[in-house]
């Protein structure tokens, strides 16, 4: 296997990591897509950019946190009982409660803030949305635990083991060398720890022989790291934790459920009708208010699910500004796919996730956030309605 690293114009294309990066991008994109769906559905029925959607997402994270605390995973409870065991049931309860709570929050926001604005100018509705978003952020800062930002204890997540899929394995001699080095390193580490006998490895009382042993152990460890890197360079494969795989599957399942709801149920049909033509839909006897509430609840529930999975499987810390950045990114994804278009949001989300990861892959992680916007601008210039969106010609 020759070296898979190509350097061109300052960009590094390391093809041995490409599959891994694609998987990373897919997972990032899945979360974007899930949140983007909320933006796009609300936009579809109301033509409103729901800036508070990121904050609904943030509250979903908090709900998941509180549920996990209720199951004995709060820092205080863990101090008393550090071996608390989690289970799939707890995770299912967490995600369902987060989804239900977010759906409720979405409906409340819609009823109190957006419904009165329905016949007003769109920019006024937008400012209301910004107002709700600011209110939730800053009121959250007063009433929610955020100093320091809490995170869900990692014990909640029982699915932490790694799955490895090798597409091209490293040469046998490298792997053998690695195994040998690893055994030697573990051996030396063991010896050193026995010699230390509870003392710190930086203790002044170490004898020269012990210090030498320590250095030897360190060198062995460095050798293992170097071989690990060599394997990483020479092999092509994907490592993913079970938790993330579950996350990806859940997102896809949720999307399929959404598709079923929208395409095959009366409520979904009503939603599509309202999205197509607000006025005619109401003339045809559709209760527009109900449909809009339903849309908000659906979108918010998806955000709740996304938030729960993010804080559980990634361990992200939750604070009142937690939804802001992700919200903006997801919104960009929705616009990229064509806002108001449900498959578009999914496509946009995955594309954004992949694009960001590929920029990182090429060695420009410092421009990761900017690239999303650059792509957006380029796409919009070529196709003003987004990738799947239609840019209708305005009628006179």
């Amino acid at each position, binding site marked *: 296997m020759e070296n898979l690293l190509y350097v061109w114009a300052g960009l590094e294309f390391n093809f041995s990591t490409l599959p891994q990066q694609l998987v990373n991008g897919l997972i990032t994109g899945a979360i974007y897509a899930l949140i983007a769906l909320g933006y796009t559905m609300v936009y579809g029925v109301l033509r409103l950019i729901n800036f508070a959607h990121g904050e609904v997402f943030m509250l979903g994270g908090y709900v998941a946190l509180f549920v996990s605390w209720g199951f004995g995973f709060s820092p205080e409870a863990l101090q008393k009982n550090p071996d608390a065991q989690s289970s799939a049931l707890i995770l299912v309860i967490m995600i369902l409660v987060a989804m239900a709570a977010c759906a409720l929050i979405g409906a409340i926001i819609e009823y109190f803030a957006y419904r009165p604005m329905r016949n007003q100018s769109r920019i006024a509705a937008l400012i209301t949305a910004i107002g709700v978003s600011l209110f939730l952020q800053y009121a959250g800062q007063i009433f929610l635990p955020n*100093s320091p930002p809490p995170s869900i204890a990692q014990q909640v997540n029982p699915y932490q083991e790694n799955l490895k899929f090798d597409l091209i394995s490293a040469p046998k001699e490298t792997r053998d060398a690695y195994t040998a080095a690893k055994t030697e390193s573990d051996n030396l580490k063991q010896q050193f720890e026995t010699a230390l006998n509870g003392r710190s490895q930086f203790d002044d009382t170490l004898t020269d022989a012990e210090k030498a042993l320590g250095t030897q152990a360190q060198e062995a460890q460095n050798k293992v790291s170097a071989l690990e890197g060599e394997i990483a360079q020479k092999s092509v494969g994907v490592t993913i934790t079970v938790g993330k795989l579950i996350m990806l599957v859940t997102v896809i399942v949720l999307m399929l459920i959404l598709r079923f709801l929208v395409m095959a149920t009366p409520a979904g049909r009503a939603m599509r009708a309202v999205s197509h033509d607000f006025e005619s839909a109401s003339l045809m006897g559709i209760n527009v208010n109900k449909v809009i509430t339903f849309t908000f609840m659906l979108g918010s529930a998806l955000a709740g699910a996304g938030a729960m999975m993010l804080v559980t499987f990634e361990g992200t810390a939750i604070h009142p500004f937690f939804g802001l950045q992700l919200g903006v990114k997801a919104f960009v994804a929705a616009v990229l796919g064509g806002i108001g278009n449900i498959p578009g949001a999914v496509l946009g989300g995955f594309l954004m996730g992949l694009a960001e990861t590929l920029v990182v892959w090429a060695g420009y992680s410092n421009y990761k956030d900017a690239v999303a916007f650059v792509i957006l601008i380029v796409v919009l210039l070529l196709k003003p309605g987004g990738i799947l969106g239609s840019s209708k010609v305005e009628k006179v």
Partner: protein
Amino acid sequence: MKKLGFWNAGLIVLALGSLALMAGCKPKDGGGESTGSTGSSSSTSGETASGDKINIGLIASINGDLRPWGSDCRDGAMLAVEEINAAGGIDGKMINLIVEDSNSKPEDGKTAAQKLASSDVVGLVGEVASGITMQIKSVALEAGLPLVAVGATNPDITKNSDGKVFRVCYTDDFQGPVMAKFAFQALGKKRAAIMTDNKQPYSQELSKKFMAFFKSLGGEIVTEEFYESGQNQFTGQITNIKSKAPDVIFLSGYFTEVGPIARQIRQQGLNVPLLGGDGWDSKELVTSGGDAIIGGYFCNHYNNKEDRPEVQNFLTKWNEKYGGEPATTMGALGYDAVMLMIDGIKRGGTDKAKIAEALNNTEGFAGVSGVINLKDHNGDPPKRALVVEVTQDGQKFAKAYEPDEVFN
């Protein structure tokens, strides 16, 4: 069109104004969130006229994304003031701490500082971040006020400062090299990868200094990857790092992202030691990082198991007032900054220039975060840095670096 919407809106404004009145109708003292001076000065308010108070201004990020550090800094500062006032103040004069919010923004920080400078404060304390401190510094210099920065580690803060700007933390010029030296010599690592939080000046500067010193020791920096605080997916950067085969990874950001990063590093099967700066210090680090972060090392100002009386006194008092331990290192630094300012007032009186002079002559001030000497150091105290290891129940002391032993 006979609407009175114009007046309606006006009336609402009045209604909101009444919020303030309602608050005023029962001003409470004590309670969880009140300022430290309220509790203590109200008990003595009978005998102390306003002229008998010494005002110190504190600018802290009470709102906005630096809140975890800002609110700890304020709590620590209030603790210091309470302690001094309980002991009778300075020559019978009570200390009055005026806290202003910077909203985590340089602009607002400057406004807050200007407000304080326009009232009769004798000195300013703050901020936890370098960018905001820079703005406060310009106000302090114009008003001739001494400024004690709390957590601003950027070396530029004390440059061109007329001997008026001080800090209680060490600079990135020191912290970065300490960790580089620790990685290279104590751990014997030769190939380091760095992850920098590009949004935080603190992190950018720390990475730069670590990188420079690690290279000068003979080590190799295999790659530097960036993220921005607020992001939650770091897998792309980690995959890149993994392919470069480092011996050690230096994470220069704050604990909010370090926990998830550590987890994602281990999830990709990368088992090298993790190192960081004082931004790691938080009780949340282990909750969010879990097993992944345990065994990592970071540079800290003090260690909660140290038996120095200052440390134990501080931790006991904190536990009595707020319960538990400070969430971030800014609790101790805020406390030290105010104590240092009070020490300056004790030695220099209430004249601004005299306080600055007294602060410049500080020798052997025993703070929680270590001994502070400011004489002939242009506001940057050479302080001892502790490298601590992250363990399941907090931190374990690993190695101490005295200021003069790092660079030789």
